[in-house]
Structure formats: structure tokens, C-alpha cells
């Protein structure tokens, strides 16, 4: 029974990791990709480790240390990356352009 619960948690964690990857693909610029990557993958890590704790209850203290370590280091590393990206002035995407919505209308009028 606990194995089923553990497996479900691991599966949900893997789904979060996949969403992190998908987010990194879809997001427009470096900063937004960092955001998608950090948040989803941290929670994915935590869920997978908790799922493993269901399988091996004897390891739960060690896994707790691991979860805590991941929570402490993931945000710090993404902050360092974002700060460096800002320092070398990577172009940042603005809000999605509004002109796209009216372009077909202009083409129809012009043509």
C-alpha cells in the first residue's frame, strides 16, 4: 500500500520535472526560462524524494536532509544565474506585442 502511494508521488514529481522542461522550451527569454526551471524542478525533486521515503522508511532522515539541501541551493543558484545574466545584459522579453493582433486587419486593408 505504501509502495503505491510512493509510486504515485514519484510519478507526480516526474510530471513536475517534465513541466519544468516544457516551460523552459516555451518561455521567450532567459529570465523567464530560469523561473520556470527553478520552481517546478525544486518541487519535483521534493516529491520524488518523499515518494522514495515511502518505499524505504529507514532512509527518511537522510532524504529529509537532501530535500532541505535542494530547497536551500536551487533558489540561490538561479539567483546567481539571473544576476549574471542581467550583468552581461541579456535581452529581456517585454510584454507580448499587441501589433500581432491587428496585423492581419492591416494586411487586409492594405492589400
Amino acid at each position, binding site marked *: 500500500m505504501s509502495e503505491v502511494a510512493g509510486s504515485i508521488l514519484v510519478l507526480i514529481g516526474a510530471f513536475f520535472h517534465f513541466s519544468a522542461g516544457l516551460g523552459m522550451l516555451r518561455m521567450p527569454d532567459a529570465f523567464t526560462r530560469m523561473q520556470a526551471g527553478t520552481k517546478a524542478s525544486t518541487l519535483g525533486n521534493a516529491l520524488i524524494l518523499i515518494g522514495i521515503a515511502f518505499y524505504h522508511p529507514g532512509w527518511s532522515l537522510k532524504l529529509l*536532509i537532501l530535500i532541505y*539541501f535542494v530547497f*536551500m*541551493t536551487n533558489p*540561490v543558484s538561479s*539567483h*546567481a544565474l539571473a*544576476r549574471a545574466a542581467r*550583468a*552581461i545584459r541579456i535581452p529581456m522579453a517585454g510584454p507580448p506585442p499587441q501589433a500581432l493582433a491587428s496585423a492581419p486587419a492591416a494586411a487586409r486593408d492594405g492589400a
Partner: protein
Amino acid sequence: MMQRLPSAIAVLLLALIFATIAIGHAEQTVLRPLAESYVRLVPHELGAPNVITGILLTYRAFDTLGEVAVLFMVAAGVGLVLKEPGKAGARSASDSEAAQPASEIVRTAAQILVPLIAIFAAYIIMNGHISAGGGFQGGAVIASAVLLMLLADPSHKLNSVFLSVTESLAGVLFVLVGIAGLIFAGGFLDNRVLPLGQFGAFFSAGAIPLLSVLLGVKVGCELSVILDRFRA
């Protein structure tokens, strides 16, 4: 769309290879004779539950000494190839626009994390004979703590004299324990110079914990010296 076709074909071929390997994989149910004999001998003769550490630090301990010597040669070679700053003039011009002091957040995080990493490395080293771990692994974790300190504070000076002296001392002690094995027990680096103790206890398996500690210290110092050379 046409640009993505070669990538799609490459992914498909990789998936095919992976599927062939995964389907054709048959799990071994019995150990090969050599492995079988090691699995039988290590807990029985050496008193260590971790077979790998037993092999590394007693049956094939001479190889381990050779590996440590190779690490030392790597450190010396890196020190020779990457000279001290004197040629730093060409680099600093291009770095000046990108170099900035490390963020306060990274510095604080490094200060909090380094003691925790250090105690975890000590745990890995000391538990080499009971569970997974050992000297090499713990030494690499110590080096990662040093790397974190260097990343957070690039101007931090590492005391390389202290590191070199510690590393050489650990190496000398390692060989001395080996020679003691020649005199007091079965051969060079035999672990039975110290009592075998109770199987699976913390202080057991003879000289293996001692050798693990010496190995961990030596590997940690060497990797830190290599990192220091790269930083300058």
C-alpha cells in the same frame, strides 16, 4: 519544418538503440566466480560489510596507492601548465566589465552551506566500510565545499602551503600504515594491524577507517589545490 527533420531522425535512431539495449538486457542472477569469492571473503576475513571498500583498501590497496599518486601527478601537472598570475594582464581587460563582487546572497548561502557540506563529507569518509562511501568520495565532497567557498568569494586566499603539507603528510602516513601491515600482519596494507572488531560496528574492519580518513584528507587537499590553480 525541414530543419527539424535531421534532429527528428537522430532522436528516432537513439530511441531505437536504447530500445534494443533495454529489451536485450538480461539481469544476471548469479555472480561470476571471482565476484562470488570476493563477496564471500571480504566480510569473513576483513570484517567489512562494504565489499567494494574492502577490495579497494586491502585486496587491491596497492592500486589505490597508485591512483593517489596519479592524482598527485595531475595536481603537479596542472600547477605547471597554469602559471601563477603574471599573465593576468591580458585577461583582466576583458573581465573587468563582467567581473563584479559576488552577490551577498550567494556569499551568505556559501557561509551557511560549507559547514554542513563538511560534516556530510566527514560522515561519508567515516562510513566507508559500513555503507556506501569511502575516502575518494568524501574527498571529492570536501573539494566541492572548497569550490563553493571560492565561487562565493573569488578573492579568498587558500593557504596552499598548509594544503600541500597536509596532503603529503597524509600520503606518508598511508604508506607507513602499509609498512606496519608488512611487519605486524599478512602483507603490505593488510588491514588486520588493527583489531577487526564487531561486524558492522562503527569502529571495525581493522585499519580500513583509518585508511579511509587518510585517503579522504589527501584527495580533498589535492582537488582543492587543483581548483585553486584554475582560479588564479
